[in-house]
């Protein structure tokens, strides 16, 4: 298990757990970030990441990406 910020670009990972504040977690869920979803990192910038999840592209700041465990 590691935070999403550590994942290599292009590699596919499965989400294990999402932490953080309730509000942000709910928003992530509606975007497709649930345990079991497959994510892959498209691009990384100082810890901010762009990932592919359920066919859509989502940008996440480092603080949030650190709370998504894969």
């Amino acid at each position, binding site marked *: 298990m590691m935070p999403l910020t550590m994942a290599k670009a292009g590699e596919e990972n499965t989400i294990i757990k999402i932490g953080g504040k309730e509000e942000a977690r*709910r928003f992530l869920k509606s975007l497709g970030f649930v345990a079991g979803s497959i994510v892959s990192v*498209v*691009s990384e*910038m100082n810890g901010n990441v762009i990932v592919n999840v359920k066919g859509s*592209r989502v*940008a996440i700041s480092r603080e949030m990406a650190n709370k998504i465990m894969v």
Partner: protein
Amino acid sequence: MAIKIALAGNPNSGKTTLFNGLTGSNQFVGNWPGVTVEKKEGKLKGHKDVVIMDLPGIYSLSPYTLEEVVARNYLITERPDVILNIVDGTNLERNLYLSTQLMELGIPVVMAINMMDIVEKNGDHIDINQLRKDLGCEIVEISALKGTGIMKAAEKAVSVATRNTSAPVHKFSPELENILEDIENMLDAAIPEEQKRFYAIKLFERDDKIAQTMKVVPKVEDMIKKAENALDDDSESIITNERYGYITSVIGKSYKRSARGQLSISDKIDRIVTNRILALPIFAVVMFIVYYVSVTTVGTIVTDWTNDVLFGEIIPPAIENILVSINCAAWLQSLILDGIVAGVGAVIGFVPQMLVLFVFLAFLEACGYMARVAFIMDRIFRKFGLSGKSFIPMLIGSGCGVPGVMASRTIENDRDRKMTIMTTTFIPCGAKLPIIALIAGAFFDGSAWVATSAYFVGVAAIVCSGIILKKTKMFAGEPAPFVMELPAYHMPTVTNVLRSMWERGWSFIKKAGTIILLSTIVLWFLMSFGWADGSFGMLEAEQLDNSILASVGSVIAPLFTPLGWGDWKMAVAAVTGLIAKENVVGTFGILFGFAEVAEDGAEIWGQLAGSMTGVAAYSFLIFNLLCAPCFAAIGAIKREMNSGKWTWFAIGYQTILAYAVSLCVYQIGTAITGGGFGIGTVVAVLVVIGFLYLLFHPYKESTKLTVNVKKTAKA
């Protein structure tokens, strides 16, 4: 009987394009009551009795964002006859998450799958018949961009609405279904049969906002607790997981993916554009091109033409001829020519330049690059308490503050949005450029550093305000984590870009037609009338010192003496800047006795330079850049803040900041340039110290708060 169609779908699913395609120009734009979420309504082309309501773009029907609450309140209370759900075919799984929730509402749903052409091009395939069978609703393939299939989708919606059949509902796992059925049976009989499932699910999710709307709320807490223990998860996550589980099973049967794992074109572009090293240089180049074209080349050519030819050689003489030929009274001629035409014309002159800028921004927005810009800038903006999304309003604000402030709507977090609204107008807008040109020309030999420093002062004001405000109680706390969907890159259509440009440009033109028109009339009156030769009446141009305006100006002028420009003419010019910033130059022109001046006021440079020192002029410039924006922008701030109190706070903050900075510049600047050391210098130094304290003192409020929380927790 009119049929109401509600258009619902994810952001970036092509909803707006579909809405424009279905309704054409037959639209009515407003706000949802009480909130600053845009409400669009239109009549279906060729069907006078079919109304289409464009709901805000949402990802789910949960109660956590303003858009979601607005959309679901509309669906629950207004009950449209049918929901037209637009779904992005390239992103079926995520889009169906909303669809499954829409189907629970007991309103017939017609699904329009968009971007089918792209799905096919990617080599994927969606089995529409299978999907129709599994979801139990009508499905139409469309391409909103090309306009294919959209009328068919609308007609299908109309026919489903008249048949009035409810959409069949999907099933979750048996354990969950049993609980939901139990809750449904406990519901008040007043709730119609077809809506029971929606209420049951919302009660299970502990959705307070829905519970509040119900007359009788059954006691279900024990049942939820039991289910949570049995399924080892919180009730909301149970529903979310069940939903995605159901969607996966549906898609497994109907969605054939060919090229899995391969990088799409958008991914490849993102690899380069959001690259750690290249992102900022690419962004800088894009912005340079945008501003180079819209400000210096194309923009200047069209602006010069409207100012010099259209409002110089064509319109004024034409109107004058008409007025003379109908024997119009002299005062009315003066009002129309010197007041209205000159005033409004000066403002309209900026429109072409602004439209060119807005075309570029609309293109960058529609093709998907703007969303990446927010991502790129987020790291930097976070350092002073703003989010990357604050950058887009500021970018647009460099053209005109009104659409800039309006663009702050895309920021979901309330604190971040309010802060963005307060700071956006610090960036010098197009209308402030003439003031910069005037001061630079009259006092600093047209030196380029004046304009550069103006932008620097604007950016510094934003950065410092971000840091200072973040330390106050109102804005305390971390900015919301940055999570944003990035749409796939695509070539926008010409009509969409032009439409977006026009909507922004129109908000500026409307301002010219209303507020500015009115204020130029008032200003003209104040300037042209007064007490001369012992009686009240219209003045000759050289009697300006006797005008009402001069009297008003003399009263407020002492306020600005500490800033170095206590002359009534300066004070009046600053006040007319509230009407529209470009008025400052025009007002100087009139006050110094020139009927008309060039945009940069070259004719009055000599007189102006003689009336104050360079330091005072720079203080005047800074005050005008930072103080309250023009009336139209204040109006926009009021609309977006949706609160009179916050509007006053924003304007008050801006003006006080402007006053303080100008004071320091003048007093300390004068002391340095050999003007002597006085009481003013002491005050200025104190202000600087106070400012530095605000900037660097630790986050007191928030630490106190956490300590208190911890103590209470222990106690």
